[in-house]
């Protein structure tokens, strides 16, 4: 954030590589995130996308919202498909079969595709060191299929397969920490982002694409439908998540942690949870427990950043 200025918006391209007219729900912050990501990446990009909301809403035959070459194959394998694209292009350019050109190879998937079904192929692709960017759009559940819990659903959230009930708090497990799993692969770049902070997001995606080797960007994407909030509040809840440190914005460049944004005034978790239908069953005691976990996780990140500063 320290590098941001009032001119930031002027530096962003007007070119839309993910066009309007797609079929996302009103207030979909994930579609907004895709739009920002595609602005950051530019036209010399090949996108492999997992099955999910963004795939369904952007490619109903015979229409497409993509101005860049785009491929959807299956749910779990966008990272493997983009590995193939990158390998094929690399081999053909080396052999002189096609002209040399710098191309961004980008795989995208939701939190289910990333943290659950596709974690094997993603881990494999990062380990093999392909020159690629993986972008996880995390809306914290399987929204496309009707709000089922994923391993990225936060503790306490009620979903259609982790419903709150007499003996259930809703999701009773903690959110899987995908950025840390990506960091464990010793890749050059890992970052978290949120479309409520668009210039930070664009900067990080650009940096991810510029880094040789694998990069991972985890984007919190508010889903009004699944979070049970009003469409017009999507941006607000993104800000609340970050200002309450539920979802800290940071990056890890060649193993060095750096916090991207420190809230001017750290909000409470209660302020973030309030108004979200998925959390409305939580008691004050439940919220206290969540607050303690958020504080401890945030401190860990801050400590790493201080050590690496």
């Amino acid at each position, binding site marked *: 954030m320290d590098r941001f200025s009032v001119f930031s918006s002027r530096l962003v391209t007007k070119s839309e590589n993910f066009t309007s007219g797609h079929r996302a729900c009103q207030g979909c912050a994930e579609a907004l995130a895709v739009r920002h990501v595609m602005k950051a990446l530019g*036209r*010399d*990009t*090949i996108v*492999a996308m997992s099955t999910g909301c963004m*795939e*369904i809403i952007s*490619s*109903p*035959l*015979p*229409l*497409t919202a*993509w*101005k*860049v*070459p*785009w*491929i*959807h*194959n*299956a749910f*779990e*394998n966008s990272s*493997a*498909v*983009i*590995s*193939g*694209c*990158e*390998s*094929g*292009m*690399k*081999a*053909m350019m*080396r*052999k002189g*079969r*096609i002209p040399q*050109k710098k*191309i961004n190879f980008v795989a995208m998937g939701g939190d289910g595709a990333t943290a659950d079904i596709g974690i*094997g*192929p993603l*881990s*494999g692709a990062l*380990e*093999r060191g392909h020159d690629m960017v993986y972008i996880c759009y995390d809306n914290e559940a399987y929204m496309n299929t009707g709000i089922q819990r994923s391993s990225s659903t936060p503790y306490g959230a009620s979903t259609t397969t982790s419903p709150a009930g007499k003996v259930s708090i809703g999701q009773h497990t903690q959110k899987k920490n995908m950025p840390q799993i990506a960091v464990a692969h010793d890749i050059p770049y890992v970052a978290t982002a949120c479309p409520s902070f668009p210039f930070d997001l664009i900067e990080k995606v650009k940096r991810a694409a510029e880094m040789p080797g694998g990069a991972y960007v985890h984007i919190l994407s508010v889903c009004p439908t699944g979070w049970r909030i009003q469409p017009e509040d999507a941006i607000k809840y993104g800000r609340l998540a970050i200002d309450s440190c539920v979802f800290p914005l940071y990056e890890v460049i060649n193993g060095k942690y750096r916090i991207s944004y420190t809230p001017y005034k750290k909000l409470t978790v209660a302020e973030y949870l309030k108004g979200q239908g998925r959390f409305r069953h939580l008691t004050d005691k439940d919220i206290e427990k969540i607050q303690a976990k958020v504080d401890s996780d945030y401190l860990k990140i801050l400590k790493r950043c201080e050590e690496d500063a």
Partner: protein
Amino acid sequence: MAKVRKGIEVSIAMADAVAQANVDVIGAYPITPQTHIVEHLSEIVANAELDAEFVPVDSEHSAMSVCCGSAAVGARTFTSTSSQGLALMAEIFYIAAAMRLPIVMALANRSLSSPLSIWNDHTDTMMVRDAGWIHLFVENGQESYDNIFTAFRIAEDEDVMLPVAVNFDGFILTHMIEPIEYEDNDTIAKYLPAFKMKNTLHPDNPVSMGCFGMPEIYTEAQMQREDAIRRAYPTIIKAWKEWGDLTGRYYHPVETYRSEDAEYCIVTMGSYGETAMEVVDSLREEGEKVGVVKIRLWRPFPLDEFRKAVLGKKSLIVLDRAISFGGPGGPVASELRSALYNKEGAPVIVNYVAGLAGRDVSRNDFRNIILEGKARAGKGDTEGFTLYGLRG
């Protein structure tokens, strides 16, 4: 590589063929059961004898996914699998054909678990029979080597653009040392020009691949696939004919041996064709009017050629290498019965399933199957299938 005849393991020869075909990307995963194909390819790449990306992936599922990605950018793409590996990649195996990605696979045919087995039969390939791939079956090492080139030629033809599986029997072929005639690189270059794909993923000409299909478009998309694989037929014939003209080794969708004047025939797919021919030779000496019919092209199914080969015979004894549990017969026999239903002069079919998970089918077994099958056909005992050699 010069034209040379050498004694070599079939898997190694397959890998050499892939290198001679100058592939760009190899997706490789060593699932049990493994063959030496990708191992040898990794050596070839490591020694700079082939300029390609060898992508050692995290699973067979990712192997086929990598192949889809690389074929989508227009790279010549190869992978090899078997058994459990094929089962794991089955999801993407279907998508590869639907997306018209011309991948070539050496499919070492083996049984599926459980019980876990690494040995040969056709259970794995029958599982993906309806995926929309072109399926070739080969009989020996030479045919395995040759059909890597014909497979690329067919797959990458502008009129085809479909993936091709070269089915060859696990162990019986994969791990055998056979005399194989290598073609020189000039012959290969003449036969198999560099791959040029019309619509690839490239920023200069952006396309969307693998879009989402609503009910109003899905049926038509499937019909296009059906059209594509049927239209591939003349290209397959042409690819085999031109290979034959170059090398003297010709291939046909349905091949016959001593069947012209035969009253009944044994029908096989894969390496057992050779045993069948030997046994038919000896039975002929005893006066049996028997021949062999071998199905080389499994998909697209050569309906006309098959009918031409067998109509007018009294009976067919069909040797299946897989079971369709609870079904009307083995997968091959069921299709052949369907192909002949209501046809004038159609032979009756007696169906045996044998050689499951590597259990040997010896010459003597073939003799028993043929003679018993003939007798059963005479008695009209033609329902279902018989599991040959069942113990206990």
